């Protein structure tokens, strides 16, 4: 090769600013931080639960404060974003073929949303 092709460098830690779709992707990925943190919170809560009522109460007290509320709020947004972004792509990852046709993606997504609503409602009613 006598030519000298020009290679455009890609900034390793800021590439996602280039396109809105990359930003959406990063937002989706970052949800994992909040889901992880929230789950760790559950792990701790469970441990406190196992240690008895007092320990559990102090866990709840620690949760109750502006910081706890703030964390929960952010985690809620992240969790919902995760759910929607997850459901929206299920038809791509798991297409369902019936005879010659594929079940329309909208239907699969819709079914997921419906199940999500039902599960959430049941848990909510149980919880309250």
């Amino acid at each position, binding site marked *: 090769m006598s030519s000298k092709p020009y290679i455009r460098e890609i900034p390793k830690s800021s590439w996602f600013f280039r396109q809105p779709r990359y930003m959406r992707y*990063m937002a989706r990925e970052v949800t*994992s931080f909040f889901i*992880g943190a*929230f789950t760790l919170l559950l*792990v701790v809560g469970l441990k406190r639960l196992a240690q008895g009522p007092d320990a559990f109460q102090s866990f709840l007290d620690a949760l109750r404060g502006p910081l706890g*509320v703030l964390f929960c709020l952010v985690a809620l947004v992240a969790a919902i974003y995760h*759910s929607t972004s997850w459901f929206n792509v299920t038809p791509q990852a798991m297409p369902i073929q019936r005879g010659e046709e594929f079940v329309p993606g909208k239907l699969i997504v819709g079914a997921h949303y419906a199940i999500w609503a039902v599960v959430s409602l049941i848990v909510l009613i149980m919880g309250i």
Partner: protein
Amino acid sequence: MAKSNKPIVWGLFAAGGTVTAFITPVLVLLTLFAAMRFAPSLFTYESIHAFAANWLGKLIIFGVITLSLWHAAHRFRITAFDFGIRADLVVATILYIIAALGTISTFFSLLSIH
């Protein structure tokens, strides 16, 4: 070419992704209520303890927590890479250890609840 070992975790990641998608938002919502003292009856020691003492309850709690942990750990591993942190092996080790510790802790916590 060497086969990747990512599928081990990826299976957990994918299962966890689905579980968290269905359940985490409402769990966070409940926790938010608790944090806001919105529904005091909800996070009572008794009701939760009763749920966790039951075998089915244990199974559900274990499933939800561990799958969520592995989902998050695996995705965060990739997120770190996407943010330009190239020490993938170190990141992965740390995150998977955290997930493993969480799994173990959950296991023993549940065992000790009767």
